[in-house]
């Protein structure tokens, strides 16, 4: 494995070989020949991987061509792409639509009652107590083992103080505490870093909900006041639920998707 950027260092010091540009041009010129050869000759797993890559490339290319075709169409009569209409005074304004799209989508979801209890991650891997808790040996000769330490990330809430040592059976390590989460809005595809308000439900165990353990599939409440959503009564929406989509103890951060 290369250590540091010694190649770049060398190039900087001595320059490239004299025929570098020409070799590069030639290699690029023959690139299509190489691809063609690969496409015909490769077999087995390598052929499979090659075909997959080609497939993805072709899709990408078709998309790009379509985009270009769109952009060459006479755009003078183009209208804002809102299906229902916008008043004249909002027509030339940009990026006013974020909260609108949010609230509209929320409303539509509400109308479909079936979607009320659906969450993006319906099933999660079970986590055993052994994995969740590490036994902490206590006592002068480390004979007692009634103390546990949580090995997962947790949310402890505002103004939390640890209990006295003698009474604290379960330790939530301060290095594994999380205050904020990266919340993605599924329809808009925007991701915002928002503060966590509380842990609503940990599907593993009600005890974990109480302890505020953050694992994949946990429902958390987040502070969405920054997004500027409003209710039908004209109040700013404050808290909203989101489901954690990653394993926070693997990534060191909490990623979640907003439930709308």
């Amino acid at each position: 494995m290369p250590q540091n950027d010694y190649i770049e260092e060398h190039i900087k010091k001595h320059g490239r070989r004299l025929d570098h540009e020409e070799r590069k041009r030639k290699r690029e010129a023959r690139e299509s020949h190489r691809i063609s050869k690969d496409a015909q000759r490769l077999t087995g797993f390598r052929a499979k991987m090659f075909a997959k890559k080609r497939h993805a490339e072709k899709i990408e290319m078709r998309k790009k061509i379509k985009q270009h075709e769109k952009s060459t169409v006479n755009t003078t009569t183009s209208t804002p792409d809102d299906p229902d209409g916008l008043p004249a005074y909002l027509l030339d304004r940009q990026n006013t639509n974020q909260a609108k799209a949010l609230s509209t989508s929320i409303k539509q979801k509400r109308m479909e009652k079936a979607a009320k209890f659906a969450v993006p991650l319906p099933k999660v891997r079970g986590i055993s107590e052994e994995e969740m808790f590490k036994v902490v040996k206590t006592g002068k000769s480390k004979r007692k083992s009634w103390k546990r330490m949580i090995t997962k990330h947790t949310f402890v809430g505002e103004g939390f103080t640890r209990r006295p040592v003698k009474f604290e059976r379960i330790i939530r390590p301060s290095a594994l505490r999380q205050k904020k989460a990266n919340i993605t809005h599924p329809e808009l595809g925007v991701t915002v870093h928002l503060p966590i308000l509380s842990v609503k439900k940990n599907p593993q165990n009600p005890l974990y909900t109480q302890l505020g353990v953050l694992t994949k599939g946990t429902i958390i409440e987040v502070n969405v006041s920054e997004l500027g959503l409003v209710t039908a009564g004209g109040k700013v929406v404050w808290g909203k639920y989101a489901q954690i989509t990653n394993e926070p103890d693997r990534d060191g951060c909490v990623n979640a998707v907003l439930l709308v």
Partner: protein
Amino acid sequence: MATVLPPPSKRARRDAQQPKDANIIPEDLPLVQVQFRAADTGQVLAGGIHLIPGSSNVKQLELLLNGLLGSSDDPTPYTFSLVDGLNPIAITSDLYCDILRPQHRSTEDVLTLEYVPQAVFRVKSVSRCTATMSGHGGTILSMAFSPKNGAKLVTGSGDGTARLWDTDMGTPVAVMKGHEKWVLCVAWSPDATFLATGSMDCSVRLWDIKTGMQIGNAMKGHSKWITSLTFEPLHLLGGRKGMRLASTSKDGTVRIWDVATRASSQTLSGHTACVTCARWSGIGVIYSCSQDKTIKVWDATGTTITLIKTLHAHAHWVNFVALSTDFMLKTGGFDPFAKDKLATDDDESLRINSRARFLKASTQNGVVTERVVTASDDQTMYLWNPFPNGTVEESSMNAKPVARMVGHQKAINHVAFSPDGRILASCSFDNSIKLWDGKTGAFLTTLRGHVAAVYMCSWSADSRLLATGSKDCTVKVWDVRNGKLYMDLPGHKDEVYAVEWSSDGKVVASGGRDKTVKIWKH
């Protein structure tokens, strides 16, 4: 270890400072010296200084003033304020509570009270939703009440139709199909017999009210969508046949259409960007404002329309232009509060009535005064008095603004003069509505309560209440006198794009993104 009580909350501390005996007026209050001054002319009422009890309330002051002005048999309501430098102190209950106790003045001083006449009639605030009218397949983009009264309402929608509604019954009357795209603006003709709609499909169409059918063909000519429509006021027609209509468009032109032939008689070009709004004023001037930051003043007194002046002041798009006579021009010959209803509404009597009403509303000190306000994306507004002599001449034109109104923190979308022309309300994307003096442009107060951008406002006919529609899905009614929220009207499921108070004050209609029109009544 002693437990210390938590300190009292801020509200408790504030309450503790308030005097407990709020409304007790001392019995040994001496007489005070008072003189009255008219707010519009600034003249002190003849008769000099009067000695009145220090406990006099507004009703008693009204009685006295009506007596002095010789209008006791037909009394006019007034509001009073103490002249105190730039900021007048409003008298809301009585002289003692508002002036003497807060020690703005002592009982030794002469109190100069400014009086402002109020509308004789009183519009009751709307308080409940009487009808939710669905039918539109798209967002409600614009709406307008009939100039006659609040019985008929027309709405334009994103589904390409305009609909006529009966607000008394809460039922649809007619569906006007024809436009291919969104109907962005609607306008009633001043005689209330037909209406005009402007659309995203770059055409203007006229519709008959009685049948709901389109009159003639679509009026085509603009190359981009229509942003606003304005009819020539009825009283300007004189003996001439053929009403005219002005339409503004994104393509940067204003087109004048002859309603009878439905042909474009003239194209007013000059703006270099989208013309956002235009107004046909009562003295025969068209004001058009544009995203090229200018306001153009066009002379429309003759048959051909010529440019008088271009006003440069704003630093960003000009979004809206409003006139102090807007309400009179909108209602035209119909007086919703006339004691004797117009016997016939034939053209001639409407025209005469329209002229009389316009002159009555706009004449100040014997001169027809029409003030103009423009609102812009640069977060300011300008108040103009372009024709101080009341005559449309380039030589006598005043191209300097009367006042520059600053205070909003985001773009101002809409601005409206109160029907009596005394107060201006401006709606901004910074969630607030601000009130300004309609004559001087001085800042009065801020109305806070909306939690999202305020799109539109509409005054009640008596200038005492203001209805606003906002992005936060609510319509709110504000009491203008004390600047407080009067009524919160939630109910819409999505943004409210259009709100309109009918000219007779009985109905408020609102519509928006949830595709329904709501009717609010007292």
